[in-house]
């Protein structure tokens, strides 16, 4: 009867041997290739440092003007522009300027990286059912696996710092843009594609002249989601040495500082709302034809 009440697992020794085997193998890999990997990511690190320095070294009035201008160019809406500038003024007034700049830096670089990798990947997926079959489950894992789990190998390989933080953010934030690029291209009206074919459109002309432009609403929804998810990773990234608004939040958690946590948390929310509104209205403006306007 014993057999039915306790699951017949492998012996403790066997299991711990397996675990050790994996750990050792990975440590070996890390020792052998850690340096190469670090060298590989070095340009990225330099770029991030440069961008963060740029944001921190720029006088705050100029940053405010640039943010206002970007919000205006993106949204063409006074409400959003004024709201964005006011939000940054409040952040500065409450002493969170430097942390916000650091967060802004990593989010911008992460988003850029995700777009650069994610859109081509999404296009690949849309063109091949086999690629879709392989990539989709990987994306599922990336989205559902607890972030702490992949932090372990990332930190083992690259140590603590900006690059591992950036990778952690990207692993979590890249799935939506890949998925929605794929979806958007697959949803393009078959009749329109047939018409394009009938006029002798080459596959390349069809991709850039028809499929991608018509998939833009979905691609933009993907970019928007990617930004939102990147922001939600700020606190976790701060655990492995990324500067920014996540650091004080982490401090607040361990010391039960309610006000500190709330302030920095709300600053993250403010960033999220600004990014969201500006990118959404920009996406909509690209689709002028959908509103029937000129």
């Amino acid at each position, binding site marked *: 009867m014993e057999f039915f009440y306790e699951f017949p697992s492998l012996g403790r020794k066997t299991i711990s041997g397996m675990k050790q085997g994996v750990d050792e193998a990975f440590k070996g890999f890390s020792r052998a290739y850690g340096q190469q990997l670090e060298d590989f990511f070095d340009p990225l690190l330099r770029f991030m440092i440069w961008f963060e320095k740029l944001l921190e070294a720029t006088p705050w009035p100029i940053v405010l003007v640039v943010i206002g201008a970007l919000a205006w160019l993106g949204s063409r809406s006074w409400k959003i522009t004024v709201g964005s500038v006011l939000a940054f003024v409040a952040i500065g007034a409450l002493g969170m300027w430097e942390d916000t700049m650091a967060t802004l830096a990593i989010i911008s670089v992460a988003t850029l990286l995700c777009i650069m990798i994610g859109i081509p990947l999404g296009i690949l997926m849309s063109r091949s059912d086999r690629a879709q079959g392989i990539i989709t489950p990987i994306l599922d894992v990336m989205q559902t696996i607890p972030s702490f789990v992949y932090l372990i190998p990332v930190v083992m390989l690259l140590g603590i710092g900006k690059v591992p933080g950036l990778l952690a953010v990207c692993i979590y934030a890249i799935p939506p843009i890949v998925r929605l690029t794929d979806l958007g291209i697959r949803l393009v009206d078959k*009749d*329109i594609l*047939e*018409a*394009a*074919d*009938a*006029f*002798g*459109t*080459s596959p390349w*002309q069809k991709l850039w002249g*028809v499929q991608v*432009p*018509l998939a833009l609403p979905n691609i933009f929804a993907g970019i928007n989601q990617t930004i939102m998810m990147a922001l939600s990773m700020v606190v976790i990234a701060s655990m492995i040495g990324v500067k920014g608004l996540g650091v004080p939040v982490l401090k607040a958690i361990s010391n039960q500082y309610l006000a500190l946590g709330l302030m920095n948390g709300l600053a993250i929310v403010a960033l999220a709302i600004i990014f969201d509104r500006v990118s959404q209205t920009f996406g909509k403006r690209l*689709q*002028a*034809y*959908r509103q*029937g306007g*000129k």
Partner: protein
Amino acid sequence: MMSGPKVQIKNLYKIFGKTPQKVLPLVKNGLGKPELLDQTNHVLGINNVSLDIPEKRIQVVMGLSGSGKSTLIRHINRLIEPTDGQILIDGEDVLAMSERQLRDVRRKKTSMVFQKFGLLPHRKVMENVGYGLEVQGVGASDIRKKAQHWIDRVGLTGYENHYPGQLSGGMQQRVGLARALATDAEILLMDEAFSALDPLIRYDMQSILLELQDELHKTIIFITHDLDEALRLGDKIAILRDGAMIQEGTAPQIVLQPADDYIADFTKDINRGKVIRLRALAANGSGYDGATIPAGTLLNDALQPLAQAPDQTLGVTEPDGRMVGTVTLTQVINALAG
């Protein structure tokens, strides 16, 4: 002037399903569409269709939905691969072409108008009309010039900078027509091009097409399910049912000598007076010296002259002056009554 066929379709078969090649022999042995579906779960799209399409004429292919007519037209520019058979354009085998050659045919030789328009919603009218040229790599200023010409010709002047979504159905199809004409392709494939339009607009579009054809002399393959449209536009009409061609001929031939009850059923409500010309009735020689009437006169238009003629009889002459015979009022009335 009738010249050789521009497009030839030879023994074309198209079977939709998992293993079309395997069930092809069954179809060749005479298995029909419903039986094929029952026994093998394959759908018979085209069943041994052969058709010579004359140059510079309008060839109509007619049939009800599911008859395979839209499938047939998509074989001509190989948007659909056939299961068996041959397609020749100017004697060249379309099915033997490489991807690149095929693209060239689609760019230069054929162009197409679609039932659902198939316009690019993110491009303005001007850019839609110029699309075929842009794909060919024509320079921007040439595209503009040609696109503007065709926009003017289909009566859309002033709408160059509108998006398709801002136009009515009829106007959108004018864009579709202008886009197809802009590449100067000799062959125009029109897949139920006017079927989505309401009757008045449809009639207008038919008139535009006929007017343009008078001048351009394209080889037009026009798919429709509407007999009135087929009779009005078609120099030649082919009728499809269940993927097979059941009759081919001119409008009067279809109306006066329907190949079977199915077609007779189709044609019985047609206003014959608007379709049949005197040529179809006059066949009894040239020995008449009374007043004459042109052979191309529609029966409806012949009633009054005949009623006023002595003996209610007139000689019928071809445009070259040759007399082909006589008609009487009774003959015409009988023909009208069917």
